[in-house]
């Protein structure tokens, strides 16, 4: 394949995507958030989990207070005297890692099963889709609740719960797309060449299902982050040793009624901006990549 043929659709996609200022803004905001989370160690004025750097006397200070060490707590401190801004950066890191990680896992599992169902049809299809239907008839929070109630809380269990919640959505969508694609001539051609089924499925069918899959994955990342935050807020998600944004919000909840709003408020805003920016990008990706899905 020549370079031009490969590059031009991608360029067209880029220019189409950039046409929406809102989506572009969402992408920029999300990039900043992601970078801030990755480089939390260097950006945050304090490592909130290094006890040597904390001063319990600085607990619950309002935003803008001066610390004993001389720097300003931009967003105040929590009950342990942690700088909220630093705590949020570290929390974001965990929220994003769990959200993105589980979405990728779920995409792999769901896509594979969806492709299998579409490709082989008949009994394989019936069995996989029956499980998908069953799974989707229970609300996500309930399934996650069940899994975490049985397994107990840890970061890996949260990821596992999110994967189990999300795979069915991928499987159903991918199957729908792949059912249409597998009737196309190129699949027939590949079958006539007697290529092994794995190669047809992953080499021919999968790439042509990718554009809608990317859209779904974007939306699922936002959903996974929100669900993780909800579970952690309820005290069922990540353990206290690796607090995500949801846990930070839960932590400040008890102080909210006494007017110390900042402990919950700012992590909440960070969560909100993250989710909304991902959704803005996802919404626009849907319009650009697949006009048929436009609602």
């Amino acid at each position, binding site marked *: 394949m020549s370079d031009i043929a490969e590059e031009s659709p991608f360029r067209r996609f880029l220019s189409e995507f950039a046409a929406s200022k809102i989506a572009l803004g969402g992408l920029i905001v999300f990039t900043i958030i992601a970078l801030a989370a990755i480089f939390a160690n260097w950006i945050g004025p304090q490592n909130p989990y290094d006890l040597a750097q904390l001063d319990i006397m600085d607990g619950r200070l309002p935003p803008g207070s001066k610390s004993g060490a001389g720097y300003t707590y931009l967003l105040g401190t929590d009950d342990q005297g942690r700088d909220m801004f630093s705590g949020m950066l570290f929390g974001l890191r965990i929220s994003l890692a769990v959200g993105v990680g589980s979405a990728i896992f779920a995409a792999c599992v769901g896509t594979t099963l969806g492709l299998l169902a579409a490709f082989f049809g008949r009994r394989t299809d019936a069995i996989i889709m029956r499980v998908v239907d069953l799974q989707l008839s229970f609300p996500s929070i*309930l399934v996650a609740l069940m899994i975490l109630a*049985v397994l107990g809380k840890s970061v890996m269990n949260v990821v596992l719960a999110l994967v189990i919640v999300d795979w069915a959505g991928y499987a159903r969508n991918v199957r729908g797309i792949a059912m249409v694609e597998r009737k196309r001539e190129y699949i027939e051609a590949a079958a006539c060449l007697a290529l092994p089924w794995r190669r047809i499925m992953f080499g021919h069918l999968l790439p042509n299902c990718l554009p809608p899959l990317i859209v779904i994955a974007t939306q699922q990342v936002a959903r996974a982050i929100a669900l993780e935050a909800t579970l952690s807020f309820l005290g069922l998600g990540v353990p206290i040793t690796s607090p995500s944004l949801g846990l930070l*919000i839960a932590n400040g909840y008890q102080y909210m*009624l006494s007017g110390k709003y900042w402990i919950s408020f700012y992590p*909440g805003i960070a969560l909100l901006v993250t*989710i909304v920016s991902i959704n803005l990008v996802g919404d626009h990706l849907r319009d650009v990549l697949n006009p048929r899905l436009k609602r």
Partner: protein
Amino acid sequence: MFTWLLRRLFQACFVVLAMTVIVFVGVHVIGNPVDILISPEADQAERARVIAAFGLDQPLWKQYALFLNGLLHGDLGRSFVFNEPALRLIGGRMPATLELAVTAVLMSVGFGVPLGLYAGLKPNGFIGRSIMAGSILGFSLPTFWVGLMLIMVFAVTLGWLPSTGRGETGELFGLRWSFLTWDGLRHMAMPALNLSLYNISLVLRLTRAGVRETLLMDYIKFARAKGLSPARVIFVHVLKNIMIPITTVVGLELGSTIAFAVVTESVFAWPGMGKLIIDSINVLDRPVIVAYLMMIVVIFITINLVVDILYTVLDPRVRLETKA
């Protein structure tokens, strides 16, 4: 129709059975049942007694049979914390959750339909577009965060509404309900609104889409040509036709609203089933957890079954399909 119903019932029973296996395996095989079923404060004699009583010294299949037997008799153990039968404990909390969920669903129709109607009739106006933008927020904002903001604004800053508990309750059919007293209603306002936000967005979008589709239909043009007043066209001809899908979706959403009440109840300290299960998980009150999981599974399967049956009754297309 009858064989179909029988098959569907059989399937439902099979799913319940499958779920009992999953819950059983989860609690008895993955976790250590001795730790799970016996409170950590129990002494040696008590441990031995409970191990014998629950048959934990029996082989696994026999334990499962015992578990199923308990399930059939509505005996799923006693709560460590409340020292009450787990099922009765959950049943006692059920009215609080049900009234919250039903109010939320009613509110989603009460707010969602008028807003969606307006947005559908004036899709390009400023207000119409704002409503749609707002509905995106309703979809993407995490429920618990909205709840916290409601508390911050209406309870802490303005001091208009109470933020926790059910308030005064009145009695009806031997159960206690908050919606019967003014104080109870005030307590219910914020949690119900919080729980309904997602559904409001959903109903709003459905209504808007339905209105825009229906307005293009010939019978609407004809009704207008007949010289009917715009109000009559909108409220009788348009609204009547879009109410069918809305009713279905709202009915379907009742189940997930009950499930998502877990979050709202925790935020507003609403003493329903959802708060109970979260508290139980946090203090490892395992009999209550198991009982709740089994109960919610049965509720969901029942709802799905009823919806399926209603579909067949209401929609001739589905009926024909099952016959073929």
